[in-house]
């Protein structure tokens, strides 16, 4: 059931099982490098700045933001969609590849899933503070209350709440479930009494008996299998926040697939950024080999082509529809006009630059891979900017037209979520096995070479 022929070398260096344990856990069992402390400091400062900005928003109100009556959704929703997109990577990566039985996922899935959890946490923060009265945020859940009211199940905003909470729970649970056997390994190797106690608590009494492994495998496939359609559902639902409203540039049926592919695109790019850092800094080249990174590069070319086609389709349909509003939005407010720079940044970063991956020299060069992975995430941020801001800033009544500029508070909140992500990922690198050791061992013998 779980057997499949594997292709190529997944783990280099002809390692024994003990070698895999030692090398993966080396980052935890040795002293943290200086760069880790430096990055932790920067991340914490960003995070604290974000907390301060959120505190000020709660204390003084949404007036501190650049939002106005026309552009009611500003940076908060851009960043929400951006983070959710990144958050799709982990689950998309580990679950789609699990369902497709692609064993090269084993070196990368743990880090990708960790990324998902921190990105979804960062994403979930934005709609809550965007509500303005965060202390009433629980009103969004359907619960018996003195008002006798329930929520509106026809609203995509409510679907969002259900989908994102389910996604956060499912991806966190899938991540933790996969981690249990490896936490037991850390427990058994710990020399310090306190560390042993903590990992004893976290490893849920795992021993590794045959029956436990069988139940574990079945549960992982079920949770993973259910999370796969969830990945598609969540970003489709996020896209419907836009697509179900009657706004030029938003009211289009291409949105669900376009958003899902965009999410996978930005997510895979972020996985690439992270894996290049992990591989280099923790000397894990034998596990994350050049062919792993090249495989991600190949996926990115494919997804980039879909992104380019989506942009072209949107523009074609705007022209084909004959709707003046649609044509104005695309031809005079995106391709040309006030937001042309943002539009062309998006096209260049997402549809043109990733085409460089067609060249083997580019997709096997770490520096290029790293730079392009960051360019893609910049491009994806601008895609969300284009969607949210351009349509809102110029609606059907020219009297309502306004420009939108983010304020310092909004920028700080965004930096704060970046800080949260950085701190989360750094803690993950130090305290949790960065790679699924038990899965690496499963593919070790049949795939390792000198």
């Amino acid at each position, binding site marked *: 059931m779980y*057997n499949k022929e594997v292709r190529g070398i997944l783990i280099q260096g002809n390692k024994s099982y003990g070698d895999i344990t030692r090398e993966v856990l080396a980052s935890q069992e040795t002293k943290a490098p200086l760069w880790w402390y430096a990055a932790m400091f920067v991340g914490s400062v960003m995070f604290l700045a974000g907390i301060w900005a959120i505190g000020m928003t709660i204390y003084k109100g949404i007036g501190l933001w650049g939002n106005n009556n026309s552009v009611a959704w500003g940076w908060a929703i851009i960043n929400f969609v951006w983070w959710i997109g990144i958050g799709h990577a982990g689950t998309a990566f580990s679950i789609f590849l699990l369902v497709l039985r692609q064993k090269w996922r084993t070196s990368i899935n743990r880090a990708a899933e960790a990324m998902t959890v921190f990105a979804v946490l960062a994403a979930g923060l934005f709609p809550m503070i965007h509500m303005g009265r965060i202390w009433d945020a629980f009103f969004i859940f359907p619960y018996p209350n003195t008002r006798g009211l329930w929520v509106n199940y026809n609203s995509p905003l409510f679907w969002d709440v259900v989908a994102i909470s389910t996604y956060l*729970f499912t991806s966190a649970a899938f991540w933790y479930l996969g981690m249990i056997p490896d936490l037991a390994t850390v427990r058994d190797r710990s020399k310090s009494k306190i560390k042993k106690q903590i990992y004893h608590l976290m490893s*849920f009494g795992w021993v*590794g008996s*045959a*029956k436990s492994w*069988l139940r574990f495998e079945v549960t992982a496939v079920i949770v993973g299998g259910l999370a796969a359609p969830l990945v598609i*559902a969540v970003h489709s639902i996020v896209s419907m926040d836009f697509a179900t409203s009657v706004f030029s540039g938003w009211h289009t049926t291409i949105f669900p697939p376009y958003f899902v592919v965009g999410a996978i695109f930005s997510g895979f790019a972020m996985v690439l950024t992270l894996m290049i850092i992990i591989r280099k800094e923790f000397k894990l080249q034998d596990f994350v080999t050049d062919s792993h990174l090249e495989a991600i590069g190949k996926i990115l070319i494919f997804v980039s082509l879909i992104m380019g086609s989506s942009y072209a389709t949107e523009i074609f349909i705007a022209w084909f529809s004959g709707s003046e509003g649609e044509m104005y939005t695309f031809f005079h407010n995106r391709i040309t006009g006030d937001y042309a720079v943002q539009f062309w940044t998006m096209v260049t970063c997402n549809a043109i630059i990733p085409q460089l991956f067609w060249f083997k020299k580019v997709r096997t060069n770490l520096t290029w891979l790293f730079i392009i992975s960051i360019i893609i995430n910049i491009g994806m941020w601008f895609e969300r900017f284009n969607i949210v801001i351009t349509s809102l800033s110029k609606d059907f009544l020219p009297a309502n037209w306004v420009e939108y500029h983010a304020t310092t508070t909004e920028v700080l909140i965004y930096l704060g979520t970046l800080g949260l992500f950085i701190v989360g990922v750094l803690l993950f690198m130090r305290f949790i096995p960065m790679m699924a050791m038990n899965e690496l061992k499963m593919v070790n013998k049949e795939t390792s070479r000198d």
Partner: protein
Amino acid sequence: MENKRLIGVYDDEKKMLSSIDSVQQNGYKIADVITPFAIEEVFEKLKLKSRINVAAFLYGLFGGVIGVFLFLYYTFVIDYPLNIGGKPSLTLTFVVIIFVGTILVTVLFTLLTFFIRDKKGPGAKEHFQYPGITDDTFLILVDKSGLSESDVKGLSKIMTDNGAIKIDEK
């Protein structure tokens, strides 16, 4: 305390798998096999089966599809039907919430089933401890109760002949 189980210790899963075959062919019953990672052949050789998938299907069907639908129907059609542009209260949009809700309910209860069935939880005690079992050591455990002294000797020989690096008792 008297040692209850005979343990064959291996450093290679292939040797352990051939040892399982020999032990079973000689009529001994294997109590448990402990490995640092999941090995499909062990499940097959020990004829292990799990019904968690059946449980998950039932959770999805009853808890998710029917449970979530009934909740939506009660709150939105019976208890307080909101008038949204005169549209009917029972709409196709329920499908979105039922779809996601079914996944939530199924994942939650499947995980709970796994943890309860396998007696796992925060701080749960390890039911067996042996050096290296979560790293690079493979164990075959056979219950000693009902085995004579010569049986134990024979079993130890079978295990050693198949590549056990050590025979232990615990």
